[in-house]
């Protein structure tokens, strides 16, 4: 049984609380500690992922004499401890988060070097990591809520990290408020389930759940709260306000945080409620949220003049693809034939898009941060001609924008084609909308490319030079992964995406992994 699972949360927590103390000694030592802690977290994440893919689901009960003993002998058959359940889907999310966090930490060493309050910055960054890893690893609803709150509070504080004439504080406050409301209603839903089934463990509740009126309200509260935290239309309004005012490195982590919430929507739909709810209705609700997100997101992005606000709207749009792909999976969950015909591929597309989106959207936000770092503005009307002086940043931008627009052979195309072709069988209209949205995305990024990098070298940016090496390394890591995932999509799908999709639809396997240890 894996000993690495608790380290995913323990290392970032230890790093977070030690950073302010180490920062008192020297800033160099603090940065070295941050990089070392990040490397240790990534190594434990990779070990966990490797173990899940080779051995199977990891179940770890904290505080038990035997970590595999999920149900104590005197608990009446109910699992009670803090239990981590890491199946292939959780492992997929852990991998995604680890890659992004490593790139962001590397990038932050340079991008935040001139800022004050870096001790707080890195401490909160590691708290956010602990929250995200906890959210995707836990098998307990209340623990999920606790990790969600850790993640949200750290995220809100980080979004407001730079004063920036009050905009950042407003963005952070909005994120904090929205997160608090979403968290509170999620907790309310957890209470409804606890009142009925006397347990907070997902696997246990899934094994005894009946679709009562209270369960119905609980599923709606959970899905809407998490959809708002993911940034799904029409509950997305906070995303442009917060993403545009937060430091770019933090925006990239907020992307991972929204992915963790998206993961939770489908963990609840597939593993907790499964076929006890009306999967067709819930599936269609998710699909409609997805369609709205795709179209409204990209339509609002096109006229934007603030590059980060524009990218934030694209985030909303991309969330739509994942909601649609996985929503189709939920809608056909009760029909084995339809699931085999197209539902499973749609789910693979949606899951594959999660990691692809995290990579290219993270890269694009880091690029926006690089431009702001050198030029001091994010206004597209003021920028121009940067291709003369920031060649590496421009090359990374081309890779990221072609990937988000779904242009072959980049990774965005690989996941989108899985969604297009499978969803086309389900409903051709949705597939057509998805393709139109991709074209509009390309149009939008052509505008950004032209506005930032094309044209003559402008006099006010005559002294602008390329960003420091650590920032380039952070962006380069993501760019290389985008290319590799695009050229070898089958390898990625077979290794991590297909097992993740299988884990989602195997509700009995999930229940058995926890309840089987009686």
């Amino acid at each position, binding site marked *: 049984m894996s000993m690495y699972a608790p380290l995913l949360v323990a290392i970032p927590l230890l790093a977070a609380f030690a950073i302010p103390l180490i920062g008192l000694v020297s800033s160099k030592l603090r940065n070295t500690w941050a990089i070392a802690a990040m490397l240790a977290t990534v190594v434990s994440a990779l070990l966990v992922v490797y173990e899940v893919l080779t051995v199977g689901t990891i179940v770890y009960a904290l505080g038990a004499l035997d970590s595999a003993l999920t149900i104590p002998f005197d608990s009446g058959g109910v699992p009670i401890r803090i239990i981590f359940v890491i199946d292939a889907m959780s492992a997929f999310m852990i991998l995604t988060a680890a890659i992004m966090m490593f790139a962001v930490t590397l990038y932050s060493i340079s991008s935040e070097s001139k800022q004050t309050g870096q001790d707080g910055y890195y401490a909160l960054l590691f708290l956010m990591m602990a929250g995200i890893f906890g959210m995707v690893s836990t098998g307990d609803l209340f623990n999920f809520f606790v990790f969600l709150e850790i993640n949200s509070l750290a995220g809100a504080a980080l979004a407001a990290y730079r004063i920036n004439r009050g905009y950042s504080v407003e963005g952070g406050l909005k994120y904090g408020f929205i997160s608090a409301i979403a968290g509170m209603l999620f907790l309310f839903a957890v209470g409804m389930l606890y009142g009925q089934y006397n347990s907070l463990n997902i696997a246990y509740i899934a094994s005894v759940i009946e679709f009562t009126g209270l369960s119905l309200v609980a599923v709606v509260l959970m899905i*809407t709260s998490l959809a708002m935290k993911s940034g799904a239309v029409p509950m997305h309004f906070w995303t442009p306000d917060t993403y545009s005012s937060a430091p770019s490195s933090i925006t990239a982590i907020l992307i991972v945080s929204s992915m963790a919430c998206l993961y939770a929507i489908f963990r609840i739909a597939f593993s907790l409620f499964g076929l006890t709810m009306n999967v067709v209705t819930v599936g269609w609700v998710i699909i409609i949220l997805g369609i709205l997100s795709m179209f*409204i997101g990209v339509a609002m992005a096109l*006229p934007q003049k603030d590059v980060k606000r524009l990218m934030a709207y694209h985030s909303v749009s991309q969330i739509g693809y994942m909601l649609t792909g996985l929503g189709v999976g939920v809608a056909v969950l009760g029909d084995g034939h339809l699931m085999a015909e*197209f539902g499973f*591929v749609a789910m693979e597309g949606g899951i594959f898009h999660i990691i692809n989106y995290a990579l290219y959207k993270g890269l694009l936000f880091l690029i926006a941060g690089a431009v702001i770092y050198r030029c001091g503005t994010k206004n597209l009307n003021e920028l121009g001609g940067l291709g003369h002086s920031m060649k590496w940043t421009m090359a990374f931008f081309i890779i990221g924008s072609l990937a988000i627009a779904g242009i072959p052979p980049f990774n965005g195309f690989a996941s989108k084609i899985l969604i297009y072709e499978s969803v086309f069988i389900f409903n051709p209209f949705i597939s057509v909308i998805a393709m139109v949205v991709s074209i509009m995305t390309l149009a939008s990024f052509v505008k950004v490319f032209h506005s930032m990098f094309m044209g003559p070298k402008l006099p006010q940016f005559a002294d602008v030079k390329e960003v420091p090496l650590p920032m380039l390394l952070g962006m380069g890591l993501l760019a290389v992964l985008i290319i590799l995932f695009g050229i070898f999509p089958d390898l990625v799908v077979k290794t991590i995406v297909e097992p993740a999709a299988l884990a989602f639809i195997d509700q009995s396997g999930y229940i058995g992994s926890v309840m089987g240890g009686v």
Partner: protein
Amino acid sequence: MELTGTLLTGYGFWNPVILILAGLVTGLVAYLLWKRGVSTYRKGSEQEKPYISGNPEPEKNAVHIRGGNVYWGFTEGLKGFYSRVIPAHSGDLNDYMLWYFGVMIAICAVVVIFQ
């Protein structure tokens, strides 16, 4: 034999390696054709200066088309749509909360009706 990099989509397949190879071959053919042409480019000559019908070259700031001008026609054509959607993004948290509770109630109603 299955080709390396072939992704089966359930409806068809996608192989980026074939696309890249095709792109390389096409690029090579284009390059060879280009090489056969007559070069008239002279580095550092008048050819490198912008020619605007004999008028003097405007300042660099004046010739760059700014981001706000791009897709002006698109947004103008969809004025009816944008005039409704943009005001909804009011920046007011009260509005955001109203949308959230509204959507929650709507979804609850849908799930109850189609239970």
